[in-house]
């Protein structure tokens, strides 16, 4: 079986977010790019499965939609242990555009399990995985917190709103994964970093497709009014404020 990880290159989670060009673009000045946190967990899980020979995973590939600037992030995934990578050379316009591009590559290369993070930590669309599954006409399982391979099928723990389910899926399948899929993301070893330089990173052209949505402008969050402090000896006053002023209790 072959596993594909859809890999997003996102600003480090501690980035001070700023906008530029009259608030129409994200200001990338000084931004550190990292693997989207959920994609990093997916990759870790895929590698664990590959190492467990009973799972029968031959190859773990990463697929990214981005310009040349995302290559250091892709190389990091190779250093962590992915076997090869494909970069689809395009500026990601929206989730639909990204999913259409990745679908094209997956159709050509043929993967059995496709892992997508539940969202990207930048645009928070939470939609590429589901869209990709529909483009491919694959089943999809979302909010996955555990993934195992059993008798040629894939077994998932999926979060439902108010509980958990065990779901068995045929392959091929798209899994949309969240926290829990692997305990902690792997860190590349020195040897991994050396080897990553020689691993294939193939660049393919984008296909012609529309974006269905457009981010026309950005704003910074407005800061809240000053926090009203209450003395720690007078907790009752806070309770009264919540009752009479905020009216939330």
């Amino acid at each position, binding site marked *: 079986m072959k596993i594909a990880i859809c890999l997003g290159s996102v600003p480090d989670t501690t980035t001070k977010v700023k906008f530029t060009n009259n608030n129409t673009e994200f200001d990338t000045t000084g931004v550190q790019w990292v693997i989207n946190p959920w994609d990093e967990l997916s990759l870790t899980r895929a590698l664990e499965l590959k190492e467990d020979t009973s799972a029968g995973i031959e190859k773990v590939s990463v697929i990214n939609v981005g310009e040349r600037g995302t290559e250091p992030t892709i190389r990091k995934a190779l250093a962590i242990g992915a076997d090869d990578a494909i970069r689809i050379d395009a500026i990601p316009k929206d989730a639909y555009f990204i999913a259409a591009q990745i679908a094209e590559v997956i159709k050509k290369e043929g993967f059995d399990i496709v892992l997508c993070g539940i969202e990207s930590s*930048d645009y928070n669309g939470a939609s590429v995985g589901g869209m990709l599954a*529909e483009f491919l006409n694959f089943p999809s399982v979302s909010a996955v917190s555990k993934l195992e391979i059993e008798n040629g099928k894939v077994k998932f723990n999926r979060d*439902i709103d108010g509980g958990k*389910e065990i779901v068995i899926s045929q392959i091929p399948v798209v899994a949309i994964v969240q926290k829990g899929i692997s305990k902690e993301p792997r860190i590349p070893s020195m040897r991994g970093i050396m080897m990553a330089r020689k691993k294939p990173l193939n660049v393919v052209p984008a296909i012609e497709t529309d974006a269905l949505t*457009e981010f026309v402008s950005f704003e910074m969050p407005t800061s809240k009014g000053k*926090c009203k402090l209450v003395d720690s000896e007078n907790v009752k006053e*806070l309770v009264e404020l919540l009752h009479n002023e905020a009216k939330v209790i």
Partner: protein
Amino acid sequence: MSVLVYTENWDGKFKKLSFELVSYANKISEMLNTTTIALSMGNVDDDELTKLANYGATKIVSVKDEKLNNLDNQLYASVIAQVAEKENSSVVVFSNNNVGKALAPRLSVKLKAGLASAITKLPINIAPFTVYKKVFSGNGFTNVVIKTEKKILTLSQNSYEIIETGGTADIENFSADLGMTAGTEVTDVNKQTGKIILTDAEIVVSGGRGMKSGEQWGPIEELAELFGAATACTRPVSDEGWRPHEEHTGQTGKIIAPNLYFACGISGAIQHLAGVSSSKVIVAINKDNEAPIFEAADYGIIGDVHKVLPDMIEAIKELKSQ
């Protein structure tokens, strides 16, 4: 034309979020000068279905079939697409919960309809269709234009008020084409019982590393119990195993928007705030007066949580007894 709203039920009873969604969809219908159609999938009886009329749905499409007992995203999306096409829906509204997030993107591709997710407000403009939403985990906001004729929105929970309109509606039992074989099968369900669901809760009491240890969670649970609130925690707390992972709230955990959020012994790291900043009122209790949580909070007490929480519990009991 119509606005279609995908409702959710739990053992045949509508979840509160369904009434919120219908209220929201109905407001969009007013803006577009059209009608609201509610879609219910699964076994819901007519008495329960009729409740949706009370929030503005003028037609209720009910799809009942054994094949829909389990959520297979592909099959569900195909049924929703059939209904959206039949009703000529120009907007389809989902919740931004696990189910909505699983189905809306699939429908987007099926209908070639632009999707804007995790919306908290009504569209700010109809032409071009523009919605305002959070990006960068709450560190920014954007105006997104949906360029297609058909649009899909997912609404964050607890972000729109439930408005009773007191109308009536026709119920239509729709026989969808269910010819497709489901690729997935649910073999076990473990429903959380007797506990408030974190993402549904109106009040959430949450603890951070300042609580010192998992054994010292008593006051948080007691406070939560007084309100019928859910309990939550920060990432270090769930990583330490003091609390279950399901309670982890923050950028990589659950994103919540309750009416009232108690942050107890939480410093307010940017990743934690990303998961809670949409709360309507935040109360922070922390002994460090420079903790960033006070920047995000509406009310705060600088002090030791283990001294403040028992006083708070007393004061709330007193308020309740009045």
